[in-house]
């Protein structure tokens, strides 16, 4: 089976995972509706062109290295950024190809489960969350994101060990959580860790510039809550910069309407789970208000004759 065929077959395996895949893209605003329609027309045109042999796109291969200085004689954390991105009208399809190499004795069923969990969690957290805008042309691209497992080549080689253990970008265990695979694959998109690490110079203390405690996928979600972990706008912007460097274009990133709707529900839950007046409650209320303003809730409320009053 070719890599392309393997990618096509991936969703069936993913259905076995214990997380939900995002629903197919649905228009949430008039602007999104228009974009959806244009996208459909565009895809048909592209498909026709491809069938007629008039179009031969080659995905852009992205390869970078990230480093983070450590204290004392510990050297650096060094991450490998590697994926491909394929632009079509209205979509940018990001694919990370991983070659998973199980240790002897790791059962095939366990390997399949790891793959399914990784695919599903990565898609849940990254797929259809951002729109990339080309600053030169003002073209918008829905960022689709997926991981596929390959048997040769690929962007990243990952060793899969039995049992549980300390995971890193290229060493996984069959009992690691699905969200941990998504976290590690996010390093392959160029994301840095965001939890406190006294040995990492930018993250030595809770107030260090590289530390975030806002339910980030790259933060300490074990304590903050795995269910509330999400990709942040800064991650989309960082990814836009990485893609821009590889394609010699300049992109900005913003959330898609479905992503903001998901975030609104999530952050309302975080707000309501905390005591009124507490610091986490205040922070969550501010996040909810920011999302509501981004979604034009105040304007829509006013138009409906109900003035917008943020919930504290």
């Amino acid at each position, binding site marked *: 089976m070719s890599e392309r065929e393997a990618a096509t077959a991936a969703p069936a395996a993913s259905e076995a995972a214990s997380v939900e895949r995002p629903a197919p893209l649905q228009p949430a605003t008039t602007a999104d509706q228009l974009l959806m329609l244009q996208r459909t027309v565009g895809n048909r045109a592209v498909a026709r062109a491809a069938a007629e042999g008039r179009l031969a796109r080659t995905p852009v291969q992205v390869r970078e290295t990230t480093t983070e200085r450590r204290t004392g004689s510990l050297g650096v954390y060094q991450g490998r950024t590697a994926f491909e991105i394929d632009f079509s009208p209205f979509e940018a399809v990001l694919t990370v190809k991983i070659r998973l190499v199980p240790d002897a004795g790791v059962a095939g069923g366990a390997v399949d489960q790891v793959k399914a969990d990784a695919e599903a969690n990565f898609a849940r957290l990254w797929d259809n969350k951002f729109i990339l805008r080309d600053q030169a042309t003002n073209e918008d691209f829905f960022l689709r994101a997926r991981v596929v497992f390959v048997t040769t080549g690929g962007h990243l080689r990952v060793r899969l060990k039995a049992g549980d253990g300390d995971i890193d970008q290229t060493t996984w265990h069959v009992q690691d959580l699905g969200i941990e695979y998504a976290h590690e694959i996010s*390093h392959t998109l160029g994301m840095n*860790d965001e939890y406190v690490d*006294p040995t990492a110079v930018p993250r030595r203390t809770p107030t260090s510039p590289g530390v975030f405690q806002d339910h980030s996928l790259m933060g300490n979600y*074990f304590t903050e809550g*795995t269910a509330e972990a999400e990709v942040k706008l800064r991650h989309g912007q960082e990814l836009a910069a990485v893609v821009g460097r590889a394609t010699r274009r300049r992109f900005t990133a913003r959330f898609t309407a479905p992503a903001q709707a998901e975030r609104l529900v999530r952050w309302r839950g975080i707000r309501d789970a905390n005591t009124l007046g507490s610091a986490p409650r205040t922070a969550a209320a501010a996040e909810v208000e920011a999302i509501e303003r981004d979604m034009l809730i105040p304007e829509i409320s006013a138009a409906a004759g109900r003035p917008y009053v943020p919930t504290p």
Partner: protein
Amino acid sequence: MADEILERLGSDPEVTVVVSTGTEYWRAGEITLRVHGTGAVEVEHRRSGEHTDYNGTLDRGELAELGNVLARNGFATLTPDRTTSRPDEHAVTLELRRGDEVLVREQLPQGDERLEPILAEHRRVVEQVTDSALPYGKAAAPR
């Protein structure tokens, strides 16, 4: 000399072996195992501001066996063979003390394959002392 001290771990009450893994604000947190020549064993768990200590004992036979495994697998001689660690690959600290004197102290990336036998011993003793609450049991949840 350090290897000989390890091989006689149960016969010198002044000796302490320390193996520390992880980091406080990530996954299961920082888990520090201290095995004393007296047979007393401590597991210190620091996770996101919370601190829990566990205590247990090893008999002389268990101490001798542990010391031999550690010595045989380079506890006292391993040094880092690279200056880069992968994202989330934290340092493992190995330390051998006699009283207040630090005889050996080294930090290596957790993924260094030479550490595997030493980390297997760390895991075995930590599970024994914490009744499997650590390193990957209920005290490490939601891991």
